[in-house]
């Protein structure tokens, strides 16, 4: 019997890798390069988390999310945040419509937040009031409007983007909302060899579109497989030590954290580390999480959960510096 279970597990892992590869290939029909970004977005999709994409304009963030929506064949919506946007604009509101047989009635019109894949473009342009409207949707997968509660259909994933350049007229995301993102991925410029392909695809007559290769139910099944990956004790301990290492005053915090970090990661960071490491382990052909998997996902997971204080900013430290130092200082625990 155990042997059969192992065989089924192996099959499930292979199926997961196959789905992952075909979705990635479909997205890469439109997006050139940016493999790390695509893998991070897919990992978040398979884990049930949300991603914050940060990059300058023109790097294909919006088209990436749109292509993912086309490849997975789920309801996709795009919200372009502006400073005058209200929560009702994204959640939905009651409107007065003509009733059959005359008269008027109030109907609830769902907002763009009600979808499977939500692209929140330039989320930092919205007011904190509007940004907070996303909090419940991202965490609870539901929207509460007055007495009405709308449960959002799974898979539900919010992919937000923000521009690091223009800071005037923007509202940086509060720490509470940042903590709800599984990853914060920095989108960089494409490589030199990718530019030619980008030009050929985007400046011709033919418009590239991603083909639908999966659907929502398959994504949910993949999520079950990911969550079933076991985590050995030493890997769990390592993830805990890493998260505690981001907290000033902790026994595992190195000097750079004590001096330059205002606020460290919450336990959500440890959850994110483990979940992301599970996806990594499956893609690497293993059936259990290792410390190496945790180290690979730590920068994307902890980058937005470490708040640098003024002293650190004056010294020029970035969260990436802190995470890098943390990975060097915190040793892998070894049991006896």
């Amino acid at each position: 019997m155990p042997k059969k279970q192992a065989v089924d597990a192996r099959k499930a892992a292979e199926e997961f890798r196959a789905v992952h590869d075909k979705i990635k290939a479909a997205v890469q029909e439109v997006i050139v390069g940016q493999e790390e970004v695509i893998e991070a977005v897919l990992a978040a999709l398979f884990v049930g988390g949300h991603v914050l994409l940060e990059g300058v304009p023109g790097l294909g963030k919006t088209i990436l999310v749109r292509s993912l929506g086309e490849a997975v064949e789920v309801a996709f919506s795009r919200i372009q945040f502006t400073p005058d946007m209200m929560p009702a604009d994204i959640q939905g509101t009651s409107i007065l419509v003509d009733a059959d047989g005359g008269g008027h009635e109030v109907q609830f019109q769902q907002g763009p937040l009600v979808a499977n894949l939500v692209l929140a473009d330039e989320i930092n342009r919205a007011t904190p009031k509007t940004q907070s409207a996303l909090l419940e949707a991202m965490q609870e997968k539901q929207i509460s409007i007055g007495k009405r509660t709308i449960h959002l259909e799974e898979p539900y994933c919010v992919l937000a983007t923000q521009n690091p350049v223009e800071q005037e007229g923007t509202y940086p995301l509060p720490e509470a909302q940042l903590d709800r993102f599984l990853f914060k991925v920095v989108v960089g410029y494409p490589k030199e060899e990718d530019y030619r392909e980008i030009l050929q695809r985007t400046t011709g007559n033919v418009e590239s579109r991603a083909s639908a290769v999966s659907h929502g139910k398959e994504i949910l099944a993949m999520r079950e497989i990911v969550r079933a990956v076991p985590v050995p004790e030493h890997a769990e301990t390592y993830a805990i030590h890493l998260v505690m290492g981001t907290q000033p005053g902790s026994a595992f915090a190195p000097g750079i954290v004590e001096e330059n970090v205002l606020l460290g990661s919450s336990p959500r960071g440890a959850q994110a580390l483990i979940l992301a490491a599970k996806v990594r382990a499956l893609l690497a052909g293993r059936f259990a999480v290792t410390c190496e998997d945790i180290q690979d996902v730590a920068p994307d997971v902890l980058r937005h959960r470490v708040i640098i204080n003024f002293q650190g900013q004056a010294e020029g430290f970035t969260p990436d510096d802190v995470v890098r130092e943390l990975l060097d200082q915190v040793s892998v625990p070894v049991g006896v």
Partner: protein
Amino acid sequence: MSHEDDVMPAGEGTSRSTSMLEADLRMLASEAEGKLRERNYEIALRATLRPALNLGLLLLSLYVLLLLMGRAFGHGLFDYPLWLGLALGLGWPALLLVWRVSAALRQPIGRLQSLRALDEHLDLGERLQTAAEFLDCQRPAGSAIEVGFRQATLEDAAVAALAAKKRGLSLPSLPRSEVPPRLVWAFALLILLTFLLLPRIDATGTTIPIGDDGQGQAQADTEEDGTERDPLAMHQRPREDKEETPQVEAARLEPKRGSGSKEEPESSRQSKGSAGMGRPTESAGSSGASQSTGSPSNQAQTSKAGKASKKKQKKRKTKEEKKRKPNKARKEEESGSTVGKGAAGGSHRSPSASTWSSKDQVSSDEEEALEEEDEVDDETDEQEARGGVQPQLRDRRPPVNRDLSIGFGSGKNPDANGRGGPSEQKKSRGVASLVLGVPIPDHIKGHPNPGKTKITQEKVQPSAEDAPAIPAEARTPAKKAVGPMADPQMNPWMRELVRRYFLSLRSPVGKPGETRVPPSQPQIPKKD
């Protein structure tokens, strides 16, 4: 198939493959543990060897130093027996080695640690360690697929264990020992020196001073070139010189003065200095601005010759003290100053030369012996030393009194010329004679062009000072807290403004407005 049948009880290992895996892991762990313990022993030994040698070296040096001090002072206060020296020099380092190595051997090495070392060495992706943890795990079984994953992990670990049994754990060799060979040689030489010094101790245990055997004294007296080098003899010589009477001293110096006059023509030979190749001494010895001619220099020279004996009486320095200052003289010669030298001691040198030696000055050993002792102590000597350098002071007469007083003055002025020069009264003619005698000074009273500075000479020996080198250090983050800070909950735009300001200050390019972005981020494009 019931759920209980599907679930494998963790830690019991019911299947044969699981039990075999457990046995393999146990064997691999024990083998790896032994090798790790050996490695720890080797690391501890290498890490302790150098400090142990240093300690032994220090203690043996101390012992040898005490032995030598005992000899120098000639009594047994610093006599220490051989066994104590060996105990200090060899015992403590050995104790240190034993202590460190035993601590390393006693360090516990767990099963998981051993398996992890195997995983890292064979690049097994933590399979062995994970399998061992899963076998020991007491956690309740999860879903079926999770159980399947655990079983799959164990199966992978079994394959990895077979590969590990074949290859085994072969730890890479440690780098070469950091103990420098010279440290070992120094230790050995010091031990040898200790044994060489020990026979000097006689049977009673007292030390034998160096001078008692009669051989050291003779060696100290004999010299290669016959000159005395014995410090004791050198100390005795000044006492002898002090007993000389001034007459004897003058008589002793007479030949030298004569030799000094004979050496007058020698002064006109070519100078040795690099600046004045081929120039005679008189011209080479003076500065360019105040270059004196030959005759005034000679005049000053002859007039000063008679004062040499007086100066010798004033400053009774012995030949030995002069000889003790050869380096001082060399430095003086290289100073290059050429102001008024050669005044004292009947020097034949050009009076334009100062007591500081000039490179261009011709000098002999005798002259140096006579002149090096002279110092410009008071103003008289200083002015004499200048000699004919300054024509304004050549006659050494005060400046002419040009006071124009009412009346006929107190006395006749020898410088009066009746033309309004240095005279008592100007003889006026014509309309000017009708003007009442009002004292109108025709020039400002004062010394003619005395200058703003007064040049004084003093002999200063340059002394070098040791300045410690400032080690270069990389700038590190602040070690201490900044202190009480205001509430950072300011407006987001203000916070970002502050952030950008500080980042621009820290920008490596140094241009204002440029922010430092991490390598993964693209450069911030400039706004139009």
